[in-house]
């Protein structure tokens, strides 16, 4: 069965420090993975997807099939990064999410 695991409910990081939000998945096929973000009082929105291999707002995520992981990273946290982050996996037309991690950037 497909599954997305985000082990941390809350992650507090000082401004300027590196950020890593963990995501592990369980999927028998070739996965397509995403990170979504929800800022305060805004709609949930796509941050990045692994097939694009892009950096958005300084965030990157690399798919590691050996470790079945898709961790989200940023070298230097900014206060505006405080938000709820969800990892998602697409299986054909079905898209499932992890439980989310709240990132809190400390001043």
């Amino acid at each position, binding site marked *: 069965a497909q599954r997305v695991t*985000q082990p941390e409910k809350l992650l507090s990081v000082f401004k300027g420090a590196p950020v890593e939000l963990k995501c592990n998945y369980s999927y028998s096929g070739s996965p397509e993975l995403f990170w979504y973000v929800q800022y305060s009082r805004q*709609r*949930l929105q*796509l941050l990045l997807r692994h097939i694009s291999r892009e950096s958005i707002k300084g965030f990157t995520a690399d798919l590691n099939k050996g470790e079945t992981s898709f961790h989200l990273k940023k070298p230097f946290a900014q206060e505006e990064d405080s938000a709820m982050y969800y990892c*998602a996996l697409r299986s*054909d*037309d079905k*898209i499932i999410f992890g*439980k*989310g991690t709240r990132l809190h950037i400390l001043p």
Partner: protein
Amino acid sequence: SQTIHQWPATLVQPVGSPLSLECTVEGTSNPNLYWYRQAAGRGLQLLFYSVGIGQISSEVPQNLSASRPQDRQFILSSKKLLLSDSGFYLCAWSWLGEKLFFGSGTQLSVL
């Protein structure tokens, strides 16, 4: 441009009452449509998704149902609400299962 509308924004219903939440998409044709429930500590739970009119896939057994009477309309229903149905319901659309675009959500409180 494409937009997604979801209503109502908030709803308070007694236990045992019916439910109907509506979601419509504008500016695109034949979108994939999704209903999710967002609950604290449980993340985003996929409830239903649809790839076409009348085609509904159910992910979680429960007393909710979904229907897609028109190409860009997705309805979440219940005949009799339970306390456990309380939560934040999100509608979303995508093109061929790609990037999801979310509605603003409905906060449902069952009392």
